[in-house]
Every structure is written in C-alpha cells, then in structure tokens.
C-alpha cells in the first residue's frame, strides 16, 4: 500500500497537535496531584470522552472487528449486555465512594476500606498488568504498520512511544485526558467513512444480512477455515440472541446464555468497568462529584453506538469474503521474513523436480516444520500452481512472496478492519484512517501509562518505599516513572514479539487476576460487615481458583496440557470464550463466598465511623434534588439502560 504526501501530512499534523497540547499544559503542572490526578479540575464531557477513548485502544478496534467477522452481531453483547449496564452501575452506585472518599486511586480506596495488604495486592497486579497491556498493544501496532506499510518495526515502536512519552511527561494526566478527547474524534471520523463505503459496497444492511446468512450456512465458503465443515442457522451472524438461546452448538461463539449474561455481562464487564483504574481514573479527575458521576454516563452514549464503527466492519468483511467481491478474501495470516527464507528455497527446489501436487506441498511443509505448517495451512492447489509457473519461467522474489502469502489459508481475523481501509480508502482518506489507528493506539497507551505512574507513585512508592517526602519529590518520581513505564512497555513489546506464547500466558494471567476482583468491591462497598481478612483471602482464593479452574478444564480444539487442562480435564467447553466466561463466573463465586464466610468469622477492624463515605449504608445519600430531574444520574442511567434494551430487541 502506497502512502501519498497528503497522508503523511495528516499524520504529522496530528502528532504536532498532541505534542502541542502537552506543551501548552506543562505550565499548569505545579504539584504531584496536578500531574498524576489532574487536580480534579476537568469538565464532565471531557472526562466522559476520555473515559471511552482510553478503552478504545488499537486492540479494541482491531479485536472487535475480528470478532464481528468471526461471530457477527453477537459481539455486541460486549457492549449492550456488558459495558453499558456496568457503566451505569459505576456512575449511580460506585462513583460516590471513589470520588467522595478522596482516594487518589482504586488501590488507595481499597486501603481506606480494608487495609494495606489488599491495596498492595491490587496495586502490584495492576501495575504489572498495565505495563504488559501497553507492551502487547505496542507490539500489535508496530507489527501492523510493518505488514501494512512496510515500516520498520523498531522505528514505528520507538517513534510512537516517544510521542506518547513527550505529551504525558509534559502535561501529565490532564494532557493524556485532553489528547484522548482529540483522539476520540480522530478515531470516529477516521473510520466512519470506511464503514459507510463498505456498507454501500455490499448493498446496504438488508443485502448484508442476506449474504451473512450464506456465511452462517457455510462459513468455509467465506474462507473461514477454522469453521470448516460447520454450519449454523442462517441468522447466526445477524441476530444477537436467537442463536445464543439455541445453545452453544448453534452459535459461532460456542457460548451458552448463562455464561454470556452472568460471566461476561456481570462478572467480567462489571469487573473491568467498575474496578479498572485505567478507566476509573478518568472519572476521578472530574472537577466535582456531579461531573464524576456523569463521566461514565456521557461515555455510555458513544459506547452504545460504537458497534457500528467497530463490529460492523468485521461483518462487512465476512460478507465480502463470501461473495469474493473484486477478489476480496479475509486477510491471510501474514508470513514473516524468517518463514519466507525457508519457503522460497523450498519452492525453487520443488520447481527443479517434476512432482505431484501433494508431494510439492509435503516438501514445502517439511521446509517450514510441522508447527508452522499447522499455523499457516498452505493451500495445496496454489502452491502446486506456483511451482509449475516458477518452473516455466523463474519468478522474481516479490512475486514469489506475494503468491506464497496468497497461498496461506489460515485467516488473520485481526487484519479485517485494515483490509477494508486498504480496499476503500484513496490517498487522503487513507492518511486519515491510519491516523485514526495511530490515535487509538496512543490513547490506549497513554491511558495505561498515566494509570501506572499514579499507582506506582502513590500506592507503592509513597506507601512502602519513601513515606513523608516533599511533594516535589513525588512529582519528580511521577515524571521519572512515566519514563520507566514506557521503557518497560517497550521491553514487554519485544518480549511478546519474540515469544508469541508470552502473550497467551500474560492474557491468561490477566484473566485470573481480574475475574474475582468485582466480588471484593461489591461486598466492600455494600456490606459494612466485610472485613479486611475476608477481602484479602477472598481475593487471593478467587485468583487461585481461577488458575485451578483453567488447569482442570479445556476447550474444543485446544490440546490439554498446552492450553488449559494442565492437571486433568474434568470439563471440556465448546469454545475458548465459553471456558473464559465460566472461569470468571467460578472465580467470582469463590471470591464472593470466601469473603463472606471469612468476614463473618473474623472481627471487624473498622468502626462504622471509619467506614463513612466508603460503604453504602454508612454514607449519607447524595442529594440530587438541585439538579434538573432529567440530568440526575439515576434518571440518565435508566434512559441508557432502556436504550440498551431497545437495541437488544431490534437485533434480537
């Protein structure tokens, strides 16, 4: 794909503006609290858009489109069952405690509510997770830029990180939040025309539905080799609930209703949106309680319509792949240089001998080894044809490479959205869409970095390493650790790029840690009897139980002992996703029960007076009376939930 001058110009203007924002804000950074918590000074519409933008990292954009292609509209459960209700709950019930307690971070709230142990456990796992999360997404971005534009992996990685470093270092959290708003518009306005053109090209929504019915009945015809031989009811890609209600075998996700509603909708989504400091930090930076509570509600509005932007492109890709419009296919898994170096000599060697098609494939597969042969699934016909053509007239290296890439049958769903950008964007619009991609990556990364530096400075450094230092000292530490955080993310990016297993392991561990967390918060905030022993051991037990659950179960298609089922296989789930949702459910229930039982068995450590502002029943109700009734959080929340219900019914 070729970029024109105007494409580069758009990217440069964007980079200039984000750095400019950081630069302008630097003179307001006087204390550590200005730098790390924005001094609680930002209006609600800004924190609201930043709240959603911090979550809309590159992995979300790419991953949701991938799921749209793989599973169709059922992916919207992540939004209309998962995110929105959780965001409303955060605004109406939890924000008063986060904001009202004057805690500067989520771990600090845990310290106020329970004790140091719970805070320590939470802040360490959180700090490690943010660094890895930003490393994983940096690796993904640099890889994409390399595959798509041929940019050098290291250069893209370092330049993008440097831009984020500059504006976060200059303007702290305020700068991250302000640029996130700009990035929000950049992402939306960059990708919207691609979706429009795609939808127009397939012939509108009704035509799309018709074609996706074809995909459902024969996914293999759309090139979905992972679903070869399977067939689903015609509405599987275009109806959110019917295939789900028909059971795991009838929907491409392989998930049952309970796991979807309780595991994803309740445990995982509430766990993420209500306790993850990355997003909660945005609301905590709001200028007053009203603004803080409005933050997630404002964020919920764009979140509700995001499926159009992120899931629809995937569905369009699946439909285009079925009709093979203008030769479109779902992007094949990209081959890298090391594989080409093995493949090309093998093709040349095969060309010198007169072999049958299957013998040729065998030879080529032997050259790359059994594992890679399984990863890429080369197409026998295409390889054989390539060898025949190369025998007649030796082909140039570039042609060999592109035809080898074309012979890969394994689908790279993550490439779906960019394959559309490539298909529909002329120079000019292309620059805009790619800038949107850069913006989504940077907003996600800045979100992680600002959450990391606050947790490190306040919850680890100030709490355990250097107490009672001057504010200037913590300010210095906040800046220093911003540099360290980005440095560590770069290290993680390289780690993940070298060992692809590393990513699976990290994400697995995230799951173990995140799954039980919401139980601790739920009991802590709404039951004054919860003790710190209960919270600590409950959380620990919940995490261990999720590890145990994973060691005892497996999913169809995974080899026990390699992915799950390390100890034994007691239960096999129809898909990874189902296993994941059930794991979360199990961890939540274990943490909930343990916390409950241990709390009842141990003595209370905090008096009612100490729990004021931290626990629901001990806190005076907030008076929303002076606000116009329609603007009260509870009313707005109900309106948003009603909107979700309507959407779920429309796409039933």
């Amino acid at each position, binding site marked *: 794909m070729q970029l024109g001058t105007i494409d580069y110009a758009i990217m440069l203007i*964007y980079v200039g503006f984000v750095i400019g924002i950081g630069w302008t804000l630097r003179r307001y950074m006087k204390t550590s609290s200005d730098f790390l918590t924005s001094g609680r000074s930002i209006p609600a519409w800004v924190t609201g858009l930043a709240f959603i933008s911090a979550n809309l990292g590159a992995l979300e954009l790419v991953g949701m489109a991938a799921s749209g292609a793989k599973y169709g509209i059922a992916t919207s459960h992540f939004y209309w069952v998962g995110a929105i209700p959780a965001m409303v709950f955060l605004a109406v019930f939890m924000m008063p405690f986060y904001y009202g307690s004057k805690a500067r971070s989520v771990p600090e709230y845990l310290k106020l509510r329970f004790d140091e142990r719970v805070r320590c456990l939470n802040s360490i796992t959180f700090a490690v997770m943010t660094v890895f999360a930003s490393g994983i997404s940096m690796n993904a971005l640099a890889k994409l830029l390399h595959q798509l534009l041929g940019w050098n992996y290291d250069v893209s990685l370092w330049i993008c990180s440097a831009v984020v470093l500059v504006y976060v270092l200059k303007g702290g959290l305020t700068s991250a939040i*302000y640029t996130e708003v700009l990035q929000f518009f950049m992402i939306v306005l960059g990708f919207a025309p691609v979706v429009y053109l795609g939808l127009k090209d397939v012939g509108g929504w009704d035509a799309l539905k018709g074609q996706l019915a074809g995909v459902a009945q024969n996914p293999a015809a759309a090139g979905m080799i992972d679903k070869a031989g399977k067939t689903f009811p015609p509405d599987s890609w275009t109806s959110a609930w019917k295939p789900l209600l028909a059971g795991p075998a009838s929907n491409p996700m392989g998930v049952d209703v309970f796991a979807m509603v309780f595991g994803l909708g309740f445990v995982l989504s509430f766990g993420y949106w209500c306790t993850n400091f990355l997003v909660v930090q945005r609301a905590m930076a709001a200028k007053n309680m009203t603004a803080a509570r409005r933050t997630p509600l404002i964020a919920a509005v764009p979140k509700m319509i995001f499926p159009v932007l992120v899931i629809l492109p995937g569905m369009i890709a699946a439909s285009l792949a079925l009709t093979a419009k203008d030769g479109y296919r779902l992007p094949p898994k990209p081959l890298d240089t090391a594989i080409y170096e093995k493949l090309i000599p093998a093709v040349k060697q095969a060309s010198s001998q007169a072999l049958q098609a299957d013998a040729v494939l065998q030879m080529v597969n032997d050259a790359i080894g059994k594992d890679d042969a399984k990863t890429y699934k080369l197409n026998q016909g295409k390889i054989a044809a390539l060898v025949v053509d190369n025998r007649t007239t030796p082909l140039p290296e570039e042609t060999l490479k592109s035809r080898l890439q074309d012979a890969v049958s394994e689908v790279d769903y993550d490439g779906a959205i960019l394959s559309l950008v490539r298909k*529909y964007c*002329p120079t000019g619009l292309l620059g805009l869409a790619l800038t949107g991609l850069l913006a989504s990556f940077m907003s996600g990364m800045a979100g992680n970095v600002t959450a990391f530096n606050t947790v490190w400075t306040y919850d680890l450094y100030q709490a355990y390493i250097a107490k009672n230092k001057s504010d200037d000292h913590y300010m210095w530490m906040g800046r220093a650790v911003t540099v360290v955080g980005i440095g560590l993310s770069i290290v993680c990016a390289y780690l993940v790029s070298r060992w692809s297993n590393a990513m699976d392991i990290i994400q697995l561990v995230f799951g173990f840690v995140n799954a039980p967390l919401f139980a601790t918060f739920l009991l802590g905030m709404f039951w004054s009897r919860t003790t710190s022993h209960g919270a600590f051991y409950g959380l620990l037990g919940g995490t261990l139980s999720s590890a145990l659950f994973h060691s005892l179960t497996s999913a169809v298609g995974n080899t026990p002992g390699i992915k799950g089922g390390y100890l034994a296989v007691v239960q096999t789930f129809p898909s990874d996703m189902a296993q994941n949702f059930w794991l979360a459910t199990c961890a939540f229930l274990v943490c909930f029960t343990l916390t409950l039982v241990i709390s009842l068995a141990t003595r209370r450590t905090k008096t009612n007076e100490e729990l004021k502002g931290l626990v629901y029943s001990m806190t005076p109700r907030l008076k929303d009376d002076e606000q116009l009734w329609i603007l009260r959080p509870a009313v707005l929340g109900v309106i948003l939930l009603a909107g979700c219900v309507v959407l779920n019914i429309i796409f039933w």
Partner: protein
Amino acid sequence: MGLDIRWPIGLMFSIIGAMLVVYGAVTGSDAELYKRSLGINVNLAWGLLLLAFGLLMLVSAKIAAGAKKTGSSKDLS
C-alpha cells in the same frame, strides 16, 4: 484547567478538512484514484464534513470564552 480542548480539536480538524477539500478538488477528475471509493470523491465530501466539524468546535470555544469574559459563564459539567 486553563486550556479549552475545543480550540486544538477545532483547529486540527479545520486544517485537515481544508487539506482534504483542496486535495479532493484537485484530484476530482482522477477516476482511477476514486475507483476504490466506489467512484465517490470521498476526500472532497469527507473533507467538507471535517471542516464543518472543526469550525463548529472553534465557534463553540469562542462563544464559551466570550461568556467567561462577561462573567455569565454557565458551566458545562
């Protein structure tokens, strides 16, 4: 905080929008270029939209700044 984010957002999208409009107008006759976008001159059309969005942001920032100066600031929170 001392910066109204609407200024940079408005300015950036106005500039990018104007660039796309000019580019779209200049390349309008290039049928080969717009074959990808189904024959629509998306640079011109989307550029106009971005420009309008940018200007709207600038105007709203200007109004807010004016209101603040006269002291009748109604806070948007």
